[in-house]
């Protein structure tokens, strides 16, 4: 459940196994104890939960979702446009 927040890794302290993550200008240290060694790099997007990094967000997948949403919007807009044209075609005063 639970509040796990997308954040970006800005620093890694390999000795203490801690990463510094940034969430829109607020930074905090987070433990890497739940991640495979070497699996997290600076610049990665991760989920932060109660002081731990719990996974790495799949950037490509996120971008792909956002692209899908963009396409849905375009289809919707097109449908609205066609409906408007159809309605005005049917307009008795037209």
């Amino acid at each position, binding site marked *: *459940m*639970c*509040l796990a*927040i997308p954040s970006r890794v800005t620093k890694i302290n390999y000795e203490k196994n801690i990463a510094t993550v940034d*969430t*829109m*200008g*607020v*930074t*905090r*240290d987070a433990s890497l104890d739940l991640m495979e060694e070497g699996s997290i790099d600076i610049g990665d997007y991760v989920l*932060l939960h*109660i002081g731990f990094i719990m996974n790495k967000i799949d950037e490509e997948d996120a971008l792909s979702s956002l692209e899908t949403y963009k396409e849905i919007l375009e289809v919707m807009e097109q449908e609205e446009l066609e409906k408007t044209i159809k309605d005005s075609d049917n307009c008795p005063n037209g």
Partner: protein
Amino acid sequence: MENKIKLAHGNGGEENNELISKVFYKAFKNEILEKSEDAAVIEDGKLAFSTDSFTVTPLFFNGGDIGKLAVCGTCNDISMMGAKPKYLTCSVIIEEGFSIDDLNTIVQSMKKELDNNGAIVVSGDTKVVPKGSVDKIFINTTGIGEILKKDISSNNITQDDVILVNRDIGTHGAVIFASREGIALETNLKSDCSSLYPIVKELIDNNIAITALRDATRGGLNAVLNEWANQSNICIEVQEDNIPICDEVSGLCEILGFDAINLANEGTFVLAVKKDDEKKALEILKSFNKNASSIGIVSQKYPKKVILNTQWGTSRFLDIPTGELLPRIC
């Protein structure tokens, strides 16, 4: 109400209000007190009179300190009645062992803020208590001001009014929470702690039709909107995406599961002005902070309630904050 004081009783929300009305208002019953304004209007509408105590930890935070807070807090309460702060008292209770250098820094901050308001401290008191009796230093300030614009009241808001806010919300609460033991969040965020009199004066000088003003301290914007809805018996409908919130406050709220609308402010205030003056008022507010925004309207949809409307056409009630502010895990 149970028989022991809990931290929630100081939250500025439901429990706080219950304590005040069932203990203090009950004993001190009078007309002026029951108006529940930011400052008492006395002497036939000529003067505004207010008091506030300051116990903030940490004492020094990004954007201010307890001294600046102590002056802003009381002067702002007075300004919120359309009055010019003039005379303050300053009482301190200091813990044994407190650094005199720190005390000097605090007092200098107070002086600087007094100058911003054009006010002076004319009386005071100093107590020192054994180590452990207070948390370093507690300050009380009481202030009196001269009312420049009469009849500003949280009890008079109507459907002719619109609701504005002078800047982005939640910064003070966010800064204080971030610096709490164990939360360990680092940020460049600065508390919004500042004197509001210069802005209020500008609004009054430009003849803005102000119905009500209130600074959004403990309990945040939420507390003000609900208090107004209750005191004026109105419904306030807020457009959620018009509420200005900066990125860092959003970030902190995401991490801790807070709503910025519940976080304390010390330099952010809410205005109810007549619709016709909305544009002019916003222009003046924006000259002080570009994030000033018009956030809501007044209706009778659900009297004494506040409604938040989303951008996608859904709505929900905004209930008065209850309990201690605690991070959510879920």
